[in-house]
């Protein structure tokens, strides 16, 4: 970690450094081919720190083939788009028919960190990832932007971007939404299974971490920003201005609860099954999951803590060296049509970041339009907070501390 940051960006130097990397990578091609995931991600021995340390790097762009190749490669999270009874994706198929652009939709984005590990070696080497657009969570967008791995969006190709919900237009990690546009948003709150809590509701993080009746039957998320964020708010901190001490104090609370045997484990989105079966009594959960779980288990409880809860988004980004940038932007523009987004929202049950969706759904599905977890009221939104962007140093330190606790 370089301590003295260079405020000015020197494009020539950066270009030199990058080409050097590229060439070295070419020489070490054998090793790169040989090593899967982990090893391919290895830094090259003796690699000098780039001059742009600390500052955002300029992303590389490739010649756009959009006009000649009517194709776009989109990577997204599993089960994150509308699917009909026949297993087809109606909105996507409609776009393909309407635009003549073939969308290769891959559900290969299972986890921010895993996906990052997969594409980093290519992006680091200045190569095309084979993908034109994907959906990353806020903090990952911040990291990708910092590393120069994503390109600015050409808003001229996305006139519908004007439909973006006002609360999301100016986020700290991407002022003016130059690099990203939200795909879906959601809250992290507390879910519980009354069968296992003895009918008791779990309403606060304090209760989740200390109520003896839940001992050993609580799961938290491996997503640090949701888990620690909720504890910070419980302790009266704000997520946009907490300090390293606040973070450490929150981790201490977490550590104590873990040592007391209150917490069974830290999970990704695999928390849903044990929650439904009752093996997990209460947990931190995401709204979209809960809405879907409740269709089969209406008794499941979900609480947005009074002291605050996290609001996150997964955002469209276009990676460096993408071959079909304009086509990707057309896809984004298409989904920013409220009528289209309404279809997606009706299926995935997360919060749609596009204005006008609620109006569309009020006509077609009023019960959904009235669901506060899908169309939160202003009062609800006012209590939600977004985890602030972390500096590179903070990100490293906090993640290390949090993971030491998770795997300790």
């Amino acid at each position, binding site marked *: 970690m370089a301590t003295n940051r260079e405020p000015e960006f020197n494009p020539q130097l950066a270009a030199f450094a990058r080409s050097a990397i590229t060439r070295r990578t070419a020489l070490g091609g054998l090793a790169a081919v040989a090593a899967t995931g982990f090893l391919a991600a*290895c830094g090259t021995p003796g690699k000098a720190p780039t001059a742009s340390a600390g500052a955002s790097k300029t992303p590389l762009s490739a010649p756009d083939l959009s006009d000649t190749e009517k194709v776009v490669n989109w990577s997204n999270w599993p089960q994150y788009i509308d699917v009909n009874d026949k297993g087809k994706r109606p909105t996507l198929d409609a776009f393909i028919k309407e635009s003549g652009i073939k969308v290769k939709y891959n559900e290969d984005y299972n986890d921010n960190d895993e996906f990052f590990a997969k594409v980093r070696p290519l992006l680091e080497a200045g190569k095309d990832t084979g993908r034109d657009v994907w959906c990353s969570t806020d903090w990952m967008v911040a990291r990708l932007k910092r590393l120069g791995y994503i390109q600015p969006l050409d808003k001229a190709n996305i006139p519908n971007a004007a439909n973006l919900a006002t609360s999301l237009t100016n986020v700290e990690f991407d002022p003016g939404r130059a690099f990203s546009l939200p795909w879906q948003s959601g809250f992290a709150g507390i879910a519980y299974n009354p069968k296992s809590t003895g009918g008791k509701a779990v309403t606060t993080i304090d209760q989740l971490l200390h109520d003896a009746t839940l001992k*050993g039957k609580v799961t938290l998320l491996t997503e640090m920003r949701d888990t620690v964020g909720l504890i910070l708010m419980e302790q009266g901190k704000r997520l946009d201005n907490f300090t390293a001490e606040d973070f450490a104090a929150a981790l201490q609370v977490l550590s104590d609860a873990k040592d007391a045997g209150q917490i069974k484990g830290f999970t990704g989105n*695999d928390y849903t*099954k044990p929650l439904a079966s009752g093996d997990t009594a209460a947990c931190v959960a995401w709204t979209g999951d809960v809405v879907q779980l409740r269709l089969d288990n209406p008794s499941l409880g979900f609480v947005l803590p009074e002291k605050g809860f996290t609001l996150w988004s997964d955002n469209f980004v276009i990676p460096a060296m993408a071959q079909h940038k304009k086509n990707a932007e057309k896809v984004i523009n298409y989904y920013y049509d409220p009528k289209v987004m309404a279809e997606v929202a009706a299926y995935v049950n997360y919060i749609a970041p596009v204005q006008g969706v609620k109006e569309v759904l009020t006509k077609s599905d009023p019960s959904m339009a009235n669901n506060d977890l899908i169309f939160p009221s202003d009062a609800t939104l006012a209590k939600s907070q977004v985890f602030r962007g972390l500096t590179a140093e903070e990100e*490293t330190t906090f*993640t290390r501390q949090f993971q030491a606790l998770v795997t300790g």
Partner: protein
Amino acid sequence: MALVVPGVRPVKRRAVRRWGTFTPLILLAPAMLWLTVFFVVPTFSLASQSLQTGDIDNGFVLTWHFQTYAEALGRYWPQFLRSLIYAGSATVITLLVGYPLAWFIAHRSGRFKTMLLVLVIAPFFTNFLIRTLAWQIILTDTGPVTGFFRATGLIHVLQWLGLVTSDALLYSPFAVISGLAYNFLPFMVLPLYTSLERLDLRYLDAAGDLYANGWNTFWKVIWPLSLPGVVSGTLLTFIPAAGDYINSKLLGNTQTVMIGQVIDAQFLRVLDYPTAAALSFILMATIIVMVGLYVRAAGTEELV
């Protein structure tokens, strides 16, 4: 070649000899290339990575920072030890379950042999993750298995052994070891089957004829003759089990974290590649040393 054959010109002989020298090398080349590309290079790359310092923003530089090893081991030795204990327990369980099973399939199953072998491999037809998740359902709190353990009081035995902490089976060392044993059972059964199937049953007659009772026949004849299968089975089970992180992640709790989970977290989430590499290297070295000692103790090279 020592004999000088009259009438054969030396030039010709040299040419023949050169072919003779190079042919094995040529034949070995693909294997050597494979080994180099998929083992030597990655190993060096891993070693290099483990001695680097830096971060993803500034890149990693080789600084011969051996400290990483000391720190990694100092902080994560409990997870190392736990991984070895869990993998060892799972190996013993698979051996205890797999040996009679392999014997039955090899010598007692008659015309059902093929079917039983297919059944042993059948779990591989499903995804590793799905198979492990199935154990969440098997060991669920309200399920019959947990009910049985509670009703018979076996749960107290497990508690006394420290294999469960409460009256639940799921999310405990017990669940993790069970999951490991289940997932790696075929790796134990198949080599054992091959070994036992080959075993000439006439040796059993001979042992009985020479005054060995059932136990001694097993211990002095069957067991030593099946050692090659036992050794390969235990290695095929222990090595991947020691590095496994899915079972402890899905079936364990915060006190059952195995080293695979730590490496996963260090590599994927913390992005501390040197520590992840150092941990991988330590795991690899530990396993190589243990396997070396084990194979020597088992003395399999002596066997036919």
